[in-house]
């Protein structure tokens, strides 16, 4: 195994771990806003790690370009969608969890 393959494997494993952490966080965190933070572990971090890991083992340049484009669009669309969701939740008065509150 070459260095690049090992590096790619490490990145893929780290990405998978981040995805699982985000999922568990989504279940454990108490309210909408904190869950959004958990989801942002999966979305830019986990997906980004996996895409970069895949980028290291492409064999054709057009696949690499497509992966880069996916990465670019992910970093553009995911925060926009998250911001709009959080903005709407706040406008509609979704209550915010404080330390000591019960889980919702």
């Amino acid at each position: 195994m070459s260095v690049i393959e090992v590096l790619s494997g490490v990145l893929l494993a780290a990405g998978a771990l981040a995805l699982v952490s985000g999922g568990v966080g989504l279940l454990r965190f108490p309210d909408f806003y904190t869950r959004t933070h958990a989801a942002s572990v999966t979305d830019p971090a986990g997906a980004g790690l996996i895409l970069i890991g895949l980028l290291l083992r492409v064999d054709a340049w057009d696949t690499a370009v497509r992966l880069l484009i996916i990465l670019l669009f992910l970093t553009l669309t995911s925060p926009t969608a998250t911001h709009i969701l959080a903005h709407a939740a706040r406008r509609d008065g979704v209550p915010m969890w404080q330390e000591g509150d019960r889980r919702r």
Partner: protein
Amino acid sequence: MSLLDHDPTGVASAQNRRRKSTVRLLRTAPLPAVFWLLLSGRYEPLTLALGTLSVAAVCWLTWRAGLAHQSLRLAFVLRLPRYFLWLSGQVLVSAYGVARKVWSPRLVLRPVVESTPAADLPELSQVVYANSITLTPGTLSLDVDEDAIKVHSLEQAGVEELRQGRMLSRARRTEARG
């Protein structure tokens, strides 16, 4: 009489406006067109027709959202990769922090909502800054105002870090002219 006087200028300005918006649409079109060609890689009549349709749809949406005046500067595009690299590092570091909170046996969360200053930012930098805040796990931009951004953070430290202004100054420098 006054109506007659007024009319020709009204028609002229309407024509002028239409011409201006056509020019803007033509400036918007090339980027999605090149993007479509790059991704599809097929040059048959059907795919080209579908491509033309979707480029037209994108232009219409851009115009409808009032974004046709926006254009990217070359200097900004060239500086963007460096900013992305720095931001990726930040995202990984804070993702690690949030993941640790996720796996800790007792949940210790002290979420806060506070505003962090973001004064005198050009429109594009404001978008870049607010989106960077959201991209970083642990902080989330709720509301973007003229001179401040309301941030929901998993802990006070997240807001304090934003207030130190490293991300802000980097976002500002990325769009800076000259």
